[in-house]
């Protein structure tokens, strides 16, 4: 995608975040996706979430694989480093990047092809490591960039543009993540920005692996009658299980939250994910509850934050690494020097 440069003059009346930046400062180059592509809506939601969180642009690392979805990191926060890597490898590249510098905010964007076929192994293992990142799957049930083949998230019976029905059982990233121990699991819909933005914010604030499966219709190859990932189908089947909003860390409002009696989850950085709707008896901390709920609502597209657990150590804790980035440790701390070597040599005689 040529990076078509947008005019960057911000309208003076645009709101500013804590860093004094407007939402324009969180935009990227012009999208080259098809007009109406769900992915563009997710880009807008991501832009908004980062702006609202006041993430310093240069402290964000945007990573992706290959696909229409994976192109989108070019379209937000041009002040951040981006890495449009190789098909399916983003979770592993993000793992290495995060290992080197734990201080950045990691946002991975992937597609259902990228994540559930060629890259599924890396995804599973990033979950196991509880890698601290927000992982967004822009899920359209097809391989958009290669022109519409079924992906592994295609539902049984979902029809291709040519009318062929998929027969293989789908891989649902939400169920997969739940069963592998992911510590923050949500689903949303590109057409529901109101739901999506707070979910993304919570995912970014989450300590550990936050996976958000966003149904994101491909208008060119999978938005027809018979598709179960079309706008129409998704709108008609969306079942909002939980609704939430995200409250940034600030002591004065915590009181209010607790008062309200509503369910909430306190994130690792002190921010709060406040739920305005959770089904009765639904335990946000229970994988089993989430899985059962999905089972009960089979045939619907259950959305919302479905599970969260802030208590699991992330990859850095498991590896007992220091608080500062490994990449910035001074060489003197890393090299034991000639004296130690001379001593060590005695062991090899």
């Amino acid at each position, binding site marked *: 995608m040529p990076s078509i440069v947008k005019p960057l003059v911000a309208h003076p009346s645009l709101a500013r975040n804590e860093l004094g930046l407007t939402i324009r400062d969180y935009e990227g180059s012009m999208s080259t996706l098809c007009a109406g592509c769900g992915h563009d809506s997710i880009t807008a939601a991501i832009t908004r979430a980062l702006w609202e969180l006041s993430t310093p642009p240069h402290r964000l690392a945007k990573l992706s694989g290959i696909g229409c979805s994976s192109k989108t990191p070019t379209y937000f926060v041009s*002040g951040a480093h981006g*890495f449009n890597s190789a098909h399916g*490898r983003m979770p592993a*590249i993000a793992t290495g990047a995060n*290992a080197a510098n734990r201080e950045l905010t990691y946002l991975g964007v992937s597609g259902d092809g990228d994540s559930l076929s060629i890259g599924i192994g890396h995804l599973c293992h990033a979950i196991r490591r509880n890698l601290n990142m927000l992982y967004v799957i822009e899920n359209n049930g097809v391989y958009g960039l290669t022109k519409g083949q079924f992906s592994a998230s295609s539902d049984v019976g979902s029809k291709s543009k040519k009318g062929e029905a998929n027969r293989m059982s789908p891989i649902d990233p939400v169920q997969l993540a739940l069963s592998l121990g992911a510590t923050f699991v949500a689903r949303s819909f590109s057409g529901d920005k109101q739901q999506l933005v707070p979910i993304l914010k919570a995912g970014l604030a989450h300590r550990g692996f936050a996976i958000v499966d966003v149904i994101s219709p491909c208008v060119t190859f999978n938005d027809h009658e018979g598709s179960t990932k079309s706008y129409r189908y998704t709108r008609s089947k969306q079942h909002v299980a939980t609704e939430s909003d995200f409250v940034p860390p600030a002591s004065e409002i915590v009181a209010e939250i607790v008062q309200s009696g509503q369910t909430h989850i306190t994130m690792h950085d002190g921010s709060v994910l406040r739920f305005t709707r959770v089904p009765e008896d639904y335990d946000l901390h229970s994988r089993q509850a989430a899985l059962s709920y999905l089972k009960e609502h089979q045939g619907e597209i259950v959305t919302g934050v479905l599970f969260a657990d802030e208590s699991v150590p992330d990859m850095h804790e498991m*590896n007992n*690494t220091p608080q500062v980035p490994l990449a910035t440790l001074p060489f003197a701390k890393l*090299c034991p020097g*000639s004296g130690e070597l001379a001593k060590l040599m005695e062991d090899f005689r």
Partner: protein
Amino acid sequence: MRSRINDFAIKLANVNGTGSASANGLIMQAIFRMGVPVSGKNLFPSNIQGLPTWYEIRVNPKGYTARALDYDLMIAMNAQTYERDVQEVRSGGYLLYDSSWPLDAELHREDVNFIGVPLARLCNEHFREPRERILMKNIATAGALIALLNIDGAVVEQLIEEKYGRKKALRESNKRALQLGADYVREHFSCPLDFHLETMDANGDKILIDGNTATALGCVYGGATVAAWYPITPATSVMDGFKEFCEQYRKDPKTGENNFAILQAEDELAAIAMVIGASWNGARAFTSTAGPGVSLMNELLGLAYYAEIPAVIIDVQRVGPSTGMPTRTQQGDLLECAYASHGDTKHILLIPANPAECFHFAPKCFDLAERFQTPVFMMSDLDIGMNDWVTPKLTWDDGYVPDRGKVLTAEQLESTSKYFRYLPENGTAVAARTLPGVHSKGAFFTRGSGHNKFGGYTEVPDEYQEVMDRLLRKHKEAAGWVPEPIIEERAGARVGVITIGGCDPAVREALDILGDTGRPLDYMRIRAFPFHAKVAEFLADHDYCYVVEQNRDGQLCSLLILETPVAKEKIRPVLIYSGFPLSAKHVIDVITAPDVITGKAQELNAVYS
């Protein structure tokens, strides 16, 4: 005839998983401490327990430590391979066997002296636990060797002390077993044998170390903080070593935190991806693997090449293709690594010949990877990596400053008007990179898809080509930064012998022998690709050159032909590739009798000339 003091070769044939390794190591180390140049080659199976395994020890007062192919003494402890083992003893040599059972008459050889020691019986009489009996049989064998070869008893005792220190029971049973073996042979045979050891002082400043351990240490000293890997023989011990040294040197003394991260990846694709991710983020990162792993890394190696991201890959080569023989040695990944990935790519290879070079090349790999923003391979192999080599003590220059290449700081970026990722200053081949998190002005989009010199996506032909042409210049430029070849010239030589890596000792020994017998040959050991300018000079300066390497297809020959101006007919391949470390004999055979040249080399010669 050669002198019989400190100049012989023995071979121990065992079953793996029976604990022979520790007895072998004991003997090897004792000889080393006696100041005698020694080498030990472990020829082990790809299996955990029950299959044939051999350990060869060669001692030589002049320091020739390549494999010898005829053995003065065979310690034949494996019934499965007995028949073959007997054949390998030189005429007039000795064979030690377990005489607890009578020797099968068919296995007898008239021209070999048989030394029967009832090892099993002795151990059964003196030890109770079944497992102990098995283990101690090996130690008793070592005891027999102490007597037969005149190994210094005090040195052995000291080693036992060091090894078992506080574990009294173990120490005692080891001592007892040693004594059992030694006593028995002293009683029944005239000791020592006509070839044997005498203390000397040839190992002054030397150490005994394997290449993987040295590589690991080099990575610690080179400042690597992120290591990602997937287990594979023979590379696993690189990471084991790295971990051990990191635990020793990289724990923060105050917080106990690890100033390193070792990631056991889900596969090799992930391992190289992690290295790329970490390097992109400014860490010195590496992976260690073997051929199958490199094959799996092919796609991402192209990404690192094209997007210009440093990456260090330690390839401890083993016998291919495919799974091949995982516990045998070869130099068979040269071509694959030099040109890894689809499309036009060229990579940097460093090729160590011994553990000392493994140590010193490791930091060099990082320096080159960062200076040239590209993957760098260390082409080690199983022989170097997993066998103990007598090498000069490793030393470190505290003045070493890592070459991080061009990386812009926040200050530099602040004062830049606009930063472009792939636009080098005044025509140089490498552009400055920026690290995530430093400054918004440094932000750019890393991609493996078409990009122009500004870092923007492109599908415009000229813009694409401009970047590709610079990458080629960059690779060329690296030739000036890689380790020079080692060249040794002999008076009167007009023909050269070129080699790499672990072939070194065998080739040197061969050249000494050939030189002594009136056939002086010059020596060049190449240590890197792209080739240093001296490589082409050496080729130009000689009538023709033998190229000794351990693969079937003459991969180094291919690289020399493609990447230097040498005329093909000047290249004469000497290819030894059946999986065991090289011996001088292999080299001499080919050079002195071109008619016994391997089939393949003949073919290559036909093609080249």
